């Protein structure tokens, strides 16, 4: 079902984890649909993404697209990172099954959400970046067993 690259990124996710005091952090998706991605960015004074980490709740494709997205933006400038589209993520993974294309959209949204958070924290505007719409829409369940 998945390409070798997807399986590789699922089995050995790159940049999984979190960054303490990140320059920007964004969370997209919602648990109801079964996918949540959180992206942490560390951006230096020159606007270069020095460090990036992710955490993901979701299927194999969700993990692989998150992992690939972090690789594609690491070391890039903010403007370059904005060019990392879901298509670019999919191509880098040698494609996704049609039902999983939404995972790559989430990866793109997660980068944008983290950049948006960075811009807000620093009181700046990033050209071409729109407010991410795909934020978690519901309060998380706190059920215990």
């Amino acid at each position: 079902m998945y390409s070798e690259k997807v399986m590789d990124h699922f089995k050995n996710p790159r940049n999984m984890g979190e960054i303490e005091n990140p320059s920007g952090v964004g969370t997209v998706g919602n648990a109801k649909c079964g996918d949540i991605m959180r992206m942490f960015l560390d951006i230096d004074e020159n606007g270069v993404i020095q460090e990036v980490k992710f955490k993901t709740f979701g299927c194999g494709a969700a993990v692989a697209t998150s992992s690939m997205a972090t690789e594609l933006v690491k070391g890039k400038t903010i403007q370059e990172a904005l060019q990392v589209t879901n298509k670019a993520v999919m191509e880098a993974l040698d494609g996704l099954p049609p039902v999983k294309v939404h995972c790559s959209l989430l990866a793109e949204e997660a980068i944008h959400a983290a950049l948006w958070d960075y811009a807000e924290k620093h009181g700046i505007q990033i050209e071409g970046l729109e407010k991410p719409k795909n934020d978690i829409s519901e309060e998380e369940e706190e059920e215990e067993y």
Partner: protein
Amino acid sequence: MERVIYLDNAATTQTAPEVVDAMLPFFSEHYGNASTVYGLGSKSKEAISKARETIAGILGAKENEIYFTAGGTESDNWALKATAEAYREKGNHIITSKIEHHAILHTCEYLEKNGFEVTYLDVDESGVVKLDQLKAAIRPTTILISIMFANNEIGTIEPVEEIGKIASEHGILFHTDAVQAFGQVPIDVDALHIDMLSASGHKLNGPKGIGFLYIRKGVKIRSFIHGGAQERKRRAGTENVPGIVGLGKAAELAASTMEERTAKERELRDYLMARVLKEIPFTRVNGSRTSRLANNVNFCFQFIEGESLLIMLDMEGICGSSGSACTSGSLDPSHVLLAIGLPHEIAHGSLRLTLGADTTREDIDLTIEAVKKIVTQLREMSPLYEDYMKKHV
């Protein structure tokens, strides 16, 4: 090949070697068409009769009440569509449950588009159909009640005898999808007031592509497939003789080993459930703890998603299944898990493990260790787990 721990016996089973042996001559030597007059054909005819006799015996039914089909899905389609058509003059109302297999649910949706009305009964938190709701749903126009014998995802065994009684008291036909139950639990169609019953070969170590529908004598039911005199003219087409022979053999084996096999499976099942619940936090067991198939375990692990879990289990050589959206091909998790009241995010983290006759204690121990490791890994990756731990620890 590396050894596989196969814990998806509710999806399908390995065909038993005895079954394969019984089938093989009907490909090579005894290939005659059962409808012919010469000796070669009569071999096939005899073999079909023998399989029919075996199955009828197991159910306490008569031979001429067993109709071979291409499997459980066809049997379900036939039972519903043909009954609906035959009893249309009496009424247009059908009662079923929210946790049926899609072979029933999608057929009901089809019938709704064709002028029938369907009531989908709720189930309680362990997946048991609500009998008071069933009684209240009965109308003068109700022609059929179709409730599964045991659920394929959560293993809950329904109160079939009570449902059968209610149906017969009201003069309503009762069909049960027994695909998961036939060969796993004793079934007597008279004692349980069952008028029609669907079953499939490949769930009981028999071949795929073969099943049967039991139809009580006297039930008006239309032919489903036209074009020949096979199956008392009700299901035309040259018989799948090797399949029928295999199904007969598998049913015979399943019935004769049932007590011993299910006792062993039940013990391993309870051990698996107990250890996982004890050793992995934020875990629940879905389905009834008392009225449950001996080979079925269904967990939900909070904060993780089922497909990831399945892929990682597969990497360890363990086959299971999940009711997560990603495995259902839609955005919604399993309708069964939602019907027992689970929120979407919990239902996404489900894992079904279904044991078989060959499952060993060692298989279960290895599986528990693998599940523990994988659930921990996936939780470390999960933003939901991170949020929960930050809030509560």
